[in-house]
């Protein structure tokens, strides 16, 4: 094996191996467990950076094993996978840190952190998957490794939502499997090598291809929470905050959106999608989801539930950007993959901090929280403004390109959708910011716990501050080389320019 292959393998193994070890540890070996966790996470970030450096130097990263005749297991680092893998490695590092602080002294931490690591392994593998089958393997692995995290608390409520989660995800995965097998039998193995179907597949079996596209869209749509397949997501918010953060920002929901991106750009290719007229369907589904999610978020009093509906809405921006077809829209969709992750993880971190430190779980209890937890709520404010799309945050850059893509493609109604969503986002986020900073705090918080000399424990405070700073900086410094925007432009240039 070449050094490049070792590196690539290391990216996946850096969470897989610590994860397996953690299962074997005693429950009380907290220090060793934390060390393994953080070490793995730090190593992964380092390895990803090394791969990133290599790819930018033009090196090829690929591992290929033949499983059976004609079916290969392929890991490859291309520009799109690197974007996603950098995001998940970076945010995993912060989320691990957060989870260690969050789960201090709670039971079953071994199980939690074990599956936590496996979950990230799955999302890393999914990002690096070099063909459709490898993608599917990791996609299913993600479903299975996330379930124990969702039901971690073991309450009736969480078990119930876990059941729904499994039902939706497994049936989605089933549909996806069926579609992939069908597609492979039609055209042979599908590699994500920058040569989508269009070139080799002219004018045959259009009906079958359409149906397969719709099936795959439905399969990915479950994880990406496209309406009406989103039902499991607001329920899954009973999970602990770090799980919700991971679920909404990098792992599950994002995997669905990433799958849709792969489907359009690398499996079918935009040319074939245009010829089969498939993208209006995607755009329409995304638009409906955006409005529906925002509208539902408006009326949620449970903070995490409000954030969950916000995710339903925001993740569909990615699908919308891919769907409007055109380079600007695609850039918008792809950067939102990163931007939404940073912003939403900040919001969930902050929500977790409020719940853990003050016992504040409802929107109605948020009065005056800004002055009690200034760092947390400043991060929350920045991320929420980003969600609305206010400059100079990351969300503005996304919205700029999405709207630009809509204009470019002549899809005027999409602008209307974006405007409506912005307004709705403002309507359900600004009251929270207002309550936090401009309302007097109550006499007593619902369940206050003293956690260290900062407003809360350092491990809980640091991650949201970093992600909030990133939200601000990726917007403000979007023009820098290697910013998400720069990278997304690079990806899209490969797709749209011959």
């Amino acid at each position, binding site marked *: 094996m070449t050094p490049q292959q070792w590196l690539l393998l290391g990216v996946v193994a850096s969470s897989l191996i610590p994860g397996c070890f953690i299962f074997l540890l005693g429950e009380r070996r907290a220090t060793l467990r934390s060390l393994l966790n953080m070490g793995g996470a730090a190593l992964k970030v380092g390895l990803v950076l090394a791969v990133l450096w290599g790819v930018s130097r033009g090196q090829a990263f690929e591992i290929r094993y033949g499983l059976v005749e004609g079916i290969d297991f392929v890991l490859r680092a291309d520009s799109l996978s690197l974007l996603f893998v950098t995001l998940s490695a970076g945010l995993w590092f912060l989320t691990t840190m957060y989870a260690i602080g969050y789960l201090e002294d709670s039971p079953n931490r071994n199980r939690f952190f074990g599956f936590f690591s496996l979950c990230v392994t799955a999302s890393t593998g999914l990002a690096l998957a070099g063909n459709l089958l490898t993608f599917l393997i990791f996609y299913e692995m993600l479903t299975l490794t996330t379930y124990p995290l969702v039901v971690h608390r073991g309450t009736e409520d969480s078990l119930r939502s876990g059941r729904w989660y499994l039902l939706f995800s497994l049936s989605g995965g089933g549909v996806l499997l069926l579609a992939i097998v069908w597609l492979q039998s039609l055209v042979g193995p599908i590699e994500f090598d920058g040569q989508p179907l269009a070139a080799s597949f002219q004018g045959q079996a259009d*009906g079958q291809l*359409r*149906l397969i*596209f*719709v099936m795959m*869209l*439905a399969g990915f749509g479950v994880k990406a929470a496209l309406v*009406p*397949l989103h*039902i499991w997501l*607001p329920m899954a918010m009973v999970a602990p905050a770090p799980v919700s953060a991971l679920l909404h920002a990098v792992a599950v929901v994002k995997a669905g959106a990433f799958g849709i991106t792969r489907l359009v750009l690398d499996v079918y290719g935009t040319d074939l999608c245009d010829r089969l007229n*498939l993208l209006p*369907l995607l755009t329409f589904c995304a638009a409906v989801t955006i409005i529906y999610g925002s509208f*539902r978020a*408006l*009326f*949620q*009093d449970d903070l995490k539930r409000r954030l969950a509906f916000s995710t339903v809405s925001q993740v569909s921006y990615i699908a919308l950007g891919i769907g409007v077809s055109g380079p*600007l829209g695609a850039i918008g969709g792809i950067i939102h993959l990163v931007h939404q992750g940073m912003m939403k993880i900040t919001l969930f971190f902050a929500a977790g901090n409020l719940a853990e430190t003050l016992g504040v779980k*409802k*929107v*109605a209890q948020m009065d005056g929280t800004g002055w009690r937890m*200034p760092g947390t709520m400043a991060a929350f404010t920045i991320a929420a*403004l980003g969600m*609305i*799309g*206010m*400059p*100079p945050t990351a969300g*503005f*850059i996304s*919205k*700029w390109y999405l*709207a*630009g893509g809509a*204009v*470019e493609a002549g899809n005027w109604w999409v*602008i209307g959708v974006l*405007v409506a969503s*912005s*307004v709705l986002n*403002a309507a359900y986020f*600004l009251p929270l910011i207002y309550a936090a900073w*401009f309302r007097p705090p109550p006499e007593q918080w619902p369940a206050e716990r003293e956690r260290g000399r900062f407003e809360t424990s350092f491990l809980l405070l640091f991650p949201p501050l970093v992600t909030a700073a990133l939200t601000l900086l990726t*917007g*403000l*410094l*979007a*023009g*820098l080389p290697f910013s998400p*925007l720069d990278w997304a432009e690079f990806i899209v240039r490969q797709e749209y320019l011959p």
Partner: protein
Amino acid sequence: MSELLLAIMLVVPLVLAAAQGLVPRTGWLDHLTAWAALPGLLLALWGNDFSHEVPWLLLGSHLGLDLTGRIFLGLTAGLWLAAGVYAKAYLADDPRGCQFQVFFLVTMTGNLGVTVAQDGVSFLTFFTVMSLAAYGLIVHDRLAASLRAGKVYIVMTVTGETLLLVAMVLLAVQTGSVQFEGLAQRLTASAGRDWIIGLLLAGFGIKLGIMPLHVWLPLAHPAAPTPASAVLSGVMIKTGLLGLLRTLPLGTESFTQWGKLCLAAGIATCFFAAFIGTLQRNPKAVLAYSSISQMGLILLILALALIAPAAWPMVGTALLVWVVHHGLAKSALFFGVGIAGASMRAAPLRGLFMTTMTLPALALTGLPLTLGFTAKGGAKYASAMLEPSSGMLAWVFLLSTASTTLLVLRFLWTVWPTSSPIHSHNRPATGMLVPWAILCMSVSGSFFFVQFRQWTDPAWSSLTASAVWTSSWPIVAAIAFAALMIRPLKRWQTGGRICIPEGDICGPIVLLANWILRSCNPPDGKFPVAGKVALAHPTWVHHFSGIILRKFDELAALVENDTIAALIFALLAVVLLLISLG
């Protein structure tokens, strides 16, 4: 050198804001905060013209200084500097002074940035930062009225931002870039130009306070602490004009329809606002309406250039003079309101105060020997170029002089020191008196300065006997009219029958919105109760919205919590299948 000064100008206030937030309050920090706008003033006075590309900032920004930017920057920095010094004294013993300073500094950064932004994205960014941070200034005292004003303000602001975002995206895609240089030509040649112009006018019109988009303005100005009202009215609303100057295709082609619309809106705003303003009791509300009225005139002047492109250079000059004139006079008047709240026992002191206040007040009407005279002269000269309607416009200017005179008389009446002490300051502090006095003098001083430096064309700015006569007699007539009417009006008003609440049409709109919102969002915040609440109030609005919301809620509950979801899922799959095959 200028680039460095620009960077300092934008970074220093932000650093100070962070320090204000993190470090316990100290004397030197407050001193620095008061003077934070100084680099901006230096840049406006001594910086040279430049345009610098900053590729890493946002989507690739252009920052720089040109004539328009320099004048706006000079005024902006000058007024923020005055407001900073004033605020330090005004809020000396305010427990929330620190918070005020943070919002003050961030708003200032946005406002200064807007003047040096040379492309749409950075303009919009600074504009947004300014607008959002100003919310903190408006609701500073947390009184119910201020919070209400803040709510109206933020709704209008977000609406404006959204409109402008769409406008800028359209500009970017349809004209190829959002850089301001050469934008007028590119926009004129682009396909969707009417959409863009409409969105720009609406978005910036909100900031400018053009009727009926003005509703936030008369609420926000009285709510904010006096130094904040001064900059709000003096410069921040004018960023709307700056935005229009930067983006509209002025001087390229005739846009008669848009021009006529602006002309009509400007005239309507000018007179309606003056009328409603004279019925106000709070001096700051009177000033707010006066600002709206003046912004109406500004839109009117701008409309001239939309109709007659040839008039653009003259219109541009007139607008810039007008902006400076109004900024100086209006903030002097606001500063004065804060001073009038202090107790002035000695009658000569009160006399001196009122005499000094009369100067900026009458400057608004275009009194000779003030910059208002120059501004109005320029506007009249430009309007004469609009051939068929120049006669009508001459009347408009004449009547506006008269109505403005009545309005400022009303203001002087309400602000009279003995009439009602607004604040509990014992004695007007030096820190408040000095900026106020300087600004009061500057309305006249700037006139002589402009004359002396011959920056304007003597054809319309020199003090000829006829010019003095035409600009003075409406003022004198209005004063005489007011003197005659004062007795009957007083008798009529004793019952307080004539009173239009601040924000005029905002009241009914908010009432309606609250109705609907209350039925959507009942006290316990739980959505399903919407129907019940709606039925408890048997008004048709409630009833109607209640039914719709209940149905929606039932549907949503069905979709999200039941096994019916699976059926819908299957149904959807079938539909998609049909679509995909068909």
